[in-house]
């Protein structure tokens, strides 16, 4: 078995080295730029005319907008996979004995749900917006390194296949290779001692996604620093670009560390090294390394959504973002402080109380910049002329959920409270308020807000609102029930909960689990409506003929991306790149 693992890992290593060798043979990374035909204000026509047709276009594209769309489609597919896994988890927990799955299957799905949502949905959906809109917002022709941009994306599909490999391979290998059952935190010694090769595949996939994220981050930093239009300065750089810049810096410092830790874990698993063994570095070393990456990862995921809300909310409040610079400086503050709070995930590990106290101090300090943003958003809406469109509703939902997720987080930052609530559903409720209630909501706000730009069509407004209300109610029913479950002492990650009624009130626990599942069903229905709305509107929605579909001009808030969209609509007639038959076939998805 160990020999098999070794061969498998060796093969993967050879494959990766081969890919690296192949890539280094390319002599000049910047020999091709998509605007080789000459970049002008309307240079986009040159780009699109040179694009090949059909699937080849998507496989070979280095256009930031196409890559943005690829990221978006990838993320939505991952969101669907992760969402179905979440539904299975919730349905399982309707009864104390478990309604659907065995313990192993439950652990597999729980692990993959976490990894899928964080690494295959969260990071890519942000990259989707950033790829499509950062160059437009800062007046760049494209990303600084278009080819690296493409490679960064194309590393992700193999990453997903590796992460999910166990699910595909278990049936054909008679469960020799199963999905990883380590939970997304991959704590040692559990993750070292599970002999299942599926864990190795998952680790390699995770590593690959980290490489992709790092390449993307380098590209964004280079783009924002060097490709800005002349008139875009640090003083008037938009808030979304600021958050992406900070996020990229966090990725640059955090992900290589995850990569190193994963390599050490792979070595411990396959080559009998002792990085995380008791006689070596000790199991706690993994937790320190993992959370030194893991906590910045939280902000990697939440800062750009905060940027999206800061960008979109003022548009529908009819007022400029209150305290723009407060938001910028607090974003930078979060970026720095996020590297000094990692051990608040480890308060109950028995670490030295003096160290614990210092992590609590920094954790309480980092709450301030987040709270400042919340007050800025609320003040932006104060006395504003609110227009409750779908993107605006999702922005307001974001704030509401972020407040609950944030306040529960402040409690957890306090050591005495954390020692009581650690590893209970309270923690699960807390971070789901952030990852679903805030990050997910901001992603939806972004998708609806820019839908006219990337599809040329308008979504169905009623369905958008139905999506919002189902998501809002579903999120709060599900995750508030989890907070209550945490107070009742329900531990997280368990496939069943047939405990003695003397330990905790089993009847109430079951009721709250049931409530959480009802909320999850509401969420699920909402997302079905979302997918239907996006797909149908993309194919058949009314074409947008006005370059300012949100009427932003009235408040002087028409940003560069909509100005670009307006120019694109104006030049579409003279462009005429596609004949009628082809545009009827591909027009819905074509962005030119």
């Amino acid at each position: 078995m160990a020999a098999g693992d070794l061969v498998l890992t060796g093969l993967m290593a050879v494959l990766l080295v081969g890919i690296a060798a192949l890539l280094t043979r390319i002599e000049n990374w910047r020999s091709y730029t998509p605007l080789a035909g000459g970049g002008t204000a309307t240079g986009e026509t040159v780009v699109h005319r040179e694009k090949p047709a059909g699937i080849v276009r998507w496989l070979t594209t280095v256009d930031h907008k196409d890559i943005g769309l690829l990221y978006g489609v990838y993320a939505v597919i991952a969101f669907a996979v992760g969402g179905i896994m979440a539904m299975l988890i919730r349905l399982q927990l309707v009864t104390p004995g478990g309604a659907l799955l065995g313990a192993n299957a439950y652990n597999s799905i729980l692990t993959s749900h976490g990894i899928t949502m964080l690494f295959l949905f969260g990071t890519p959906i942000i990259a989707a917006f950033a790829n499509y809109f950062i160059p437009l917002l800062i007046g760049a022709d494209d990303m600084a390194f278009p080819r690296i941009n493409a490679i960064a994306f194309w590393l992700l599909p193999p990453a997903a296949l590796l992460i999910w490999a166990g699910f595909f391979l278990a049936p054909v290998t008679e469960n020799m290779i199963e999905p990883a059952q380590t939970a997304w935190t991959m704590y040692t010694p559990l993750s070292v001692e599970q002999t299942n090769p599926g864990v190795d595949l998952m680790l390699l996939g995770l590593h690959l996604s980290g490489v992709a994220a790092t390449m993307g981050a380098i590209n964004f930093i280079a783009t924002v620093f060097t490709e800005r239009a002349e008139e875009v300065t640090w003083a008037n750089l938009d808030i979304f670009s600021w958050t992406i810049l900070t996020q990229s810096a966090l990725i640059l410092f955090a992900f290589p560390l995850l990569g190193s830790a994963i390599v050490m874990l792979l070595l411990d698993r396959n080559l009998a090294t002792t990085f995380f063994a008791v006689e070596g570095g000790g199991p706690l070393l993994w937790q320190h390394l993992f959370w030194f990456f893991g906590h910045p990862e939280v902000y990697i995921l939440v800062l750009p959504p905060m940027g999206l809300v800061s960008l979109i909310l003022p548009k529908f409040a009819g007022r400029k973002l209150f305290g723009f610079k407060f938001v910028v400086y607090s974003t930078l503050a979060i970026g720095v402080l996020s590297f000094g709070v990692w051990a608040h995930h480890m308060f109950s590990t028995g670490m030295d109380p003096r160290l614990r106290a210092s992590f609590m101090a920094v954790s309480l300090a980092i709450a301030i910049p987040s709270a400042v943003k919340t007050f800025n958003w609320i003040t932006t809406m104060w006395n504003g002329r609110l227009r409750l469109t779908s993107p605006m509703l999702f922005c307001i939902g974001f704030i509401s959920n972020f407040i609950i997720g944030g306040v529960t987080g402040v409690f957890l930052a306090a050591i005495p409270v954390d020692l009581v609530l650690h590893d209970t559903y309270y923690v699960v409720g807390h971070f789901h308020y952030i990852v679903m209630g805030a990050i997910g909501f901001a992603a939806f706000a972004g998708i609806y807000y820019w839908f006219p730009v990337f599809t040329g069509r308008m979504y169905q407004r009623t369905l958008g609102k139905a999506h919002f209300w189902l998501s809002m109610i579903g999120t709060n029913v599900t995750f508030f029930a989890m907070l209550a479950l945490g107070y009742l002492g329900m531990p997280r990650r368990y496939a069943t909960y047939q405990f003695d009624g003397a330990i905790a009130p089993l009847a109430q626990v079951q009721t709250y689990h049931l409530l959480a599942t009802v909320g999850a069903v509401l969420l699920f229905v909402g997302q079905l409506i979302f997918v239907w709305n996006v797909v149908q509107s993309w194919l058949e929605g009314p074409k947008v003929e006005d370059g300012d579909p949100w009427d932003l001009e009235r408040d002087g808030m028409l940003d560069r991306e909509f100005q670009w969209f307006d120019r694109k609509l104006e030049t579409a007639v003279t462009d005429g790149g596609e004949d009628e038959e082809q545009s009827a076939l591909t027009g819905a998805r074509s962005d030119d």
Partner: protein
Amino acid sequence: MALFGFEKDTLLDLTVNVIPLGIILFFIAAFAVVPAFGTDPVFTGMQFALMISMFLLLAVLTYYAGRAIEGAEQEQESLEEASAVNEPEGEVTGLEDGDDAEAELDDASADGDDE
């Protein structure tokens, strides 16, 4: 008022980061005055190193970000003044806030005419 070479408005903006700095400073002082868990060269050293390093990093980043933004603002203002003098009305483009900036430019050029 020019604390650390910043203008009053920039200082006001930077207060947002002064609050977390203050919180960290408070805890540094509190833990120094009341070492509830005793002192140990290694752990107490690490405890203070963590808080002090975060304090310094945040202070330095805030300082340089403030410098960069204030510098860009001043540059933009001087450009606006220059273009208001040299360019004819209605041809100033690409500014962050078209309406306001143009209104300001109108004022500026009107002032210029008066003089």
